[in-house]
């Protein structure tokens, strides 16, 4: 039992999970409307969207990059699916497949330009974010698509035994992400590419291919998030993705994804997303003054992250010794 507890304590996500639990319990006791079916249902749906957005960013952060065009790709996927369903009467499955293909293709463009030109991913994706946003606005003229099949809303609005379908989909996706990075060769190669690019290349990993793959997966996640959002809102809004950038970085970093690459945690992303969603939810439930809302949001995020990093901060102050490490192993 003690060994299990020690093992658990050594996990980097424990702090994040603890911070999320503190917020969850705090809001449960501080407000009478937090622990209600309606609120928890919506918290779950928001959490799902937040984590999918963060996955799009985390997957490129793994290889040491970033994707500033994530929201713009989401916008392109939104109008692709919306227009195909509304204007060309495509069925939801085909339209969704086309939208994901657009996401993968735009991700491939990012990856291709980054690896061929050796330009920083910040510059490349900043430029493509303008290109993709321009395409979204030029094609859609800013008009939303509202005549979508009712069946498309099941994923975003429906539930299974009271649990939002979006949350179920999120759990399955995170399990796949966990398995992919833990047990597959490609997943390990992606981590190695971000951990140390030169070492990975010298050990025979095709790092350029890994960077392109990470960008394609990022595009795919952006497109999937867009589809989930359309399904939830029952309309395809060209402005979709406009606020994704901050969310994507915040959730990914709070969730333990390293900005310098080489690490990702499915559990961390889940609880990182939960922290963000809970804070935003709790502030409104507690009727915080709207003028000071941003201040409280920033303060609580900082506190939550500090709480999540307590273990790391402690270990920085007390340098590890061989004796201690040996003692732990015994």
């Amino acid at each position, binding site marked *: 039992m003690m060994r299990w507890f020690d093992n658990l304590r050594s996990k980097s996500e424990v702090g994040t999970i603890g911070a999320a639990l503190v917020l969850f319990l705090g809001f449960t006791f501080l*407000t009478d*409307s937090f622990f*209600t079916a*309606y*609120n928890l249902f*919506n918290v779950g749906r*928001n959490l799902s*969207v937040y984590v999918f957005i963060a996955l799009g960013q985390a997957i490129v952060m793994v290889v040491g990059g970033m994707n500033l065009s994530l929201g713009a790709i989401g916008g392109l996927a939104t109008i692709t699916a919306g227009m195909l369903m509304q204007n060309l009467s495509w069925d939801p499955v085909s339209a969704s497949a086309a939208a994901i293909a657009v996401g993968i293709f735009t991700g491939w463009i990012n990856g291709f330009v980054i690896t061929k030109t050796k330009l920083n991913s910040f510059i490349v994706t900043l430029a493509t974010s*303008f290109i993709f946003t*321009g395409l979204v*606005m*030029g094609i*859609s*003229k*800013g*008009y*939303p698509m*509202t005549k979508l099949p009712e069946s498309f809303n099941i994923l975003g*609005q429906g539930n299974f035994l009271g649990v939002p379908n979006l949350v179920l989909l999120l759990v399955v996706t995170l399990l796949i992400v966990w398995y992919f990075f833990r047990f597959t060769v490609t997943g390990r190669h992606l981590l190695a590419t971000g951990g140390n690019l030169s070492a990975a290349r010298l050990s025979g990993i095709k790092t350029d291919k890994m960077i392109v793959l990470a960008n394609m997966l990022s595009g795919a996640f952006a497109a999937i998030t867009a589809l989930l*959002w359309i399904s939830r*809102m*029952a*309309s395809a*809004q*060209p*402005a*979709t993705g*406009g*606020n*994704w950038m901050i969310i994507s970085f915040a959730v990914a970093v709070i969730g333990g994804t390293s900005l310098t690459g080489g690490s990702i945690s499915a559990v961390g992303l889940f609880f990182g997303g939960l922290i963000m969603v809970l804070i*935003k*939810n709790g502030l*409104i*439930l507690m*009727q915080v003054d*709207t*003028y000071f*809302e*941003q201040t409280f949001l920033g303060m609580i995020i900082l506190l939550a992250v500090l709480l999540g990093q307590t273990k790391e901060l402690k270990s920085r102050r007390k340098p590890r010794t061989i004796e201690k490490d040996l003692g732990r192993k015994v």
Partner: protein
Amino acid sequence: MKKVLWALVAFTMLLGGEAFAQAKKDYKIAWYASAVHPYFDGVKKGVEAFEKDTGITVLKQIGPDWTQESETAGLEALVAKGYKGFSVYPSNASGVNAIYKEIQSAGGFAVNFGAPSQQPTPASFTVATDVKYAATLATQTLIKLMGNKGNILNVLEVMTDPNTVLRKEGVELAVKAMPGVKIIQEVADITSIEEATEKIQNAIAAQKDKIDGIVCTGYTTTVATAQILAEYNKTAKKKIRFIGIDDDPVVVKAIKDGYIDATIAQNPYGHGYISCMLNKYLIDGYTVKAGAYMVNSGALVVTKANLDTYSSMLGAVTADILKKLEKDYLVAPKK
């Protein structure tokens, strides 16, 4: 490779320059919208009607985003090209005044459409909905729908926008007049539909059984609330009454389907037509009549009952304003 790149650059410049080629030398009127948006499409129709009726070509330019920086850069380029009359949607109510000063120094005129610039302003006119009046009208309509009693969720947008402050005042004015009604919660600081959805849903969760009605006085929040209530009111035991602003297709559909009650329609056609007409008069030598600045373009409550007729009703409002323009807002040049 270099040749291909140069060809691409030249092609892009040609595409961008196409709009400039349309300008007519006589009046040199330019219409500037911040970004691609359904509202500006409606305004553009008014500008096109003005062109058709007067034979004056107006340069129509749409900016890349909603920032004042982009708008200022775009307008500066047009001033450099010699444009005199500017019909502009101010991206930032106070920030736009700097470029208006430049326009004025270059001997030109600026007319706001859609929203006013912050006072004191070098703009000659503002053709827009009286935002405070529209907010009051919306809230009064909502209160009636609620049976003159109950709790309201007041949803505002960006708090740094002076128009948001006016909208807030408008809502509070209507509520103050009704003792049985109170604002139970205020949600604000919203810039995107995603953010609006999250915040409004959180507020509904916080006050679920206490909210009787929601009033939204901004476009983004209205679209989000229409979508939320299209889902919520389908199954809820107690329907939440709602009034928003603008006639986005999402909002119109929700009214048609009976999930929301009403919206306040503004007059985008009039914003385009009247602002260009005022520029024409100013270039012709007319001056602004003392005290004239705000041209109230009208606002209508749109419900399921007048969904098919409200556009023509707003057209009549525009025609009426155009008739009164010379008399009520301008002073003719001395011959």
